[in-house]
């Protein structure tokens, strides 16, 4: 089935579009292309990008990373739309969350804590968590009327697995809420009194060993961090939960982006199944960087045989070269079709849009418009199964 992108973009009920998929498949490109297209069709859009390629960032006016959406120049606003774009600064987002939840003294105490600094800049999952947090903020700003955005397009972090985006916030939460941390910060809270007695010897040993291994300072940093966070912790989790619910709410649609390669489509499959389990609405699959050709009727084999015949005859070297280019492309295309049709067979209800591989990177507004047009191209031949 073909995915009808324009209907999705034009529908005022579509409020949040999340582009997910494994790394390098074109999530950022797709998110930016959707933003441009929606804006030029009249939506008031904000795009949250995570790690745009340098030149793409420049052409969106994102040279400066200030964690706030900025208007994108060069957008055709004649249909009444507008485009803002921003690039996520995860550490800053985390800092702002802390600042927004604690008294100034307490906030600076946390921000200076070495454990917090490590957590906010390097913990696997922080980026996903902060992407969610930022999405929640943008939506809240829109709802509060601070901005007139009516569509938020979200890119997701370059994780190796598409599922990280959904799982990381909870994972981070449960680490911070983990048993050993609670033991460290307040041993008595880890269980009832009886439990505490039984466990206290073990806890003593464990704490002793960890102190030897890591040093007393680390454990102290963790303790002060958790203690400082304790009062705002509830609010913290509630926020993450609220954003997660936002993803389940009507108005949110997910687009899973994949390249026509085995690994990327395997991840896409997991994601599609996961969305189903969570009751989250999947708009469709974007199959990006597909090698299609204008001369599909000529098979790789025939083209190669013909090229060899010409070479044997010692003439028409140019035509032989063109036939080899074609044969190479057809081979690639056949391989891509084979993996893609396996996905289609496994998920027949998932709507698909295909974006051809461009010879070059997509790094300016025109490139993004081109990708947007490809995404929307209706009546595209659906992958033959």
């Amino acid at each position, binding site marked *: 089935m073909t995915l009808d992108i324009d209907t999705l973009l034009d529908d005022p009920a579509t409020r949040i579009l999340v582009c997910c998929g494994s790394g390098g498949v074109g999530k950022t490109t797709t998110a930016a292309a959707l933003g441009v297209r929606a804006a030029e069709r009249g939506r008031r859009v904000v795009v949250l990008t995570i790690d745009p390629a340098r030149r793409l960032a420049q052409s969106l006016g994102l040279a400066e990373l200030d964690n706030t959406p900025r208007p994108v120049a060069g957008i055709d606003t004649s249909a009444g739309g507008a485009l803002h774009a921003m690039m996520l600064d995860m550490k800053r987002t985390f800092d702002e969350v802390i600042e927004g939840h604690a008294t100034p003294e307490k906030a600076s105490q946390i921000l200076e804590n070495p454990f917090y600094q490590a957590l906010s800049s390097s913990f696997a999952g922080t980026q996903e968590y902060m992407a969610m947090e930022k999405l929640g903020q943008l939506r809240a700003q829109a709802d509060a009327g601070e901005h007139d955005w009516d569509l938020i397009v979200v890119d997701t972090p370059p994780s190796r697995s598409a599922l990280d985006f959904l799982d990381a916030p909870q994972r981070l939460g449960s680490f911070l809420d983990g048993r050993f941390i609670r033991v460290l910060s307040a041993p008595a809270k880890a269980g009832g009194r009886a439990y505490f007695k039984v466990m206290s010897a*073990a806890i003593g040993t464990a704490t002793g060993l960890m102190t030897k291994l890591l040093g007393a300072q680390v454990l102290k940093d963790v303790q002060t961090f958790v203690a400082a966070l304790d009062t705002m912790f509830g609010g913290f989790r509630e926020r993450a939960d609220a954003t997660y619910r936002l993803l389940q709410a009507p108005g949110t649609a997910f687009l899973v982006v994949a390249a026509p390669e085995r690994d990327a489509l395997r991840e896409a499959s997991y994601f599609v199944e996961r969305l189903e389990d969570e009751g989250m609405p999947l708009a469709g699959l974007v199959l990006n960087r597909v090698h299609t050709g204008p001369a599909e009727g000529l098979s790789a084999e025939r083209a190669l045989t013909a090229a060899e015949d010409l070479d044997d005859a010692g003439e028409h070297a140019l035509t032989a070269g063109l036939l080899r280019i074609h044969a190479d492309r057809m081979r690639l295309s056949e391989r891509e079709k084979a993996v893609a049709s396996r996905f289609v067979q496994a998920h027949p209800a998932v709507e698909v849009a295909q974006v051809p591989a461009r010879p070059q990177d997509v790094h300016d507004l025109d490139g993004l418009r081109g990708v947007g047009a490809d995404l929307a191209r209706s009546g595209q031949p659906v992958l033959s199964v």
Partner: protein
Amino acid sequence: MASQGFRTDSARRRPARSLPAGQRETDWPGVRLHIVTGKGGTGKTTAAAALALALASGGHRTLLAEVEGRQSIARLFDVPPLPYEETKVAVAPGGGELYGLAVDPKAALLDYLEMFYRLGRAGRMLEKIGAVDFATTIAPGVRDVLLTGKVYEAVRRRETIRDGGAEVERPVYDAVVMDAPPTGRITRFLNVNEEVVGLAKVGPIRNQANSIMTLMRSNLTAVHLVSVLEEMPVQETADAVTELEQIGLPVGGVFVNMVREPFLPPSALEAATRGSLDRSEVLDGLAAAGLGRRSRATGNDTSHAALATALLEEAAGHGERVAMEHTERGELLSLGRPTYELPALAGGIDLGALYQLAGLLGEQGAA
């Protein structure tokens, strides 16, 4: 050394050498730890495996270690998931052996505790209470020290063998290849010393971090970068070279992966991109090859003219792509590192393909 100046886009293989086993001429004499990084998906695992095979060939023993808990080695060599144990995964040409190891930080931590504190059953208790999880996931830097530490240990491990009557000591592995995290995380990952500054000033983890850093900064180590000829991976490669040099880690070679040979000579490629190829020549060629009639089976229009237009359009894209790759290759070469090229293999990567890539790496002097 592989040539470091600009090279043309055509194949550039050196003649095969015929040196006795153990005395190969390589760009990395004395290097025992090869760390392979690159942007995600560029072929780190593939290149690391091919390099490990190449280093094993001719009767050597190498270890390929992965550190991201993804069982990429098992998948690549089509063997069952690797236990936390060095496992032979392939033999190399000329009788070498390739071992694989999936480093697991939790198991590595328990190893340590056992080694330094003779824990016995207390290790289980640590797990139960969440302390192992804590130390391997959120105590800053510890996880990376544990992962690199295991690899460090494998590089340094020695064994005593009987050679005739005499007892000889030698390293267990002639070389260790680490399939490392991607460029975005590599500096932090390898800079273990810096990462654990907040930790105990003494104690096994700290000492370990110091020893690891000493090895990694020495000429026993080379950090190789894998890239494909596209903007983002090339940019990340250049950034990584700068960052690695800043922290004093020895940058190794650049592995240019998935290289495709151009199908036309440079002048024709240029003309193709400009759209000024000789169309009538193509029409003649198609006629000579007997192509371009309407296909009765599919009803597709494959008449000469339409086919010529289609082929010219594909050629234009090809020309544009080759030009872009040429620019990106120039960027990579300007880094001034030894460069090795690995072709895009049409059939994908299986064991046979790995042998082929290993052979090419050997010929180019990477191993």
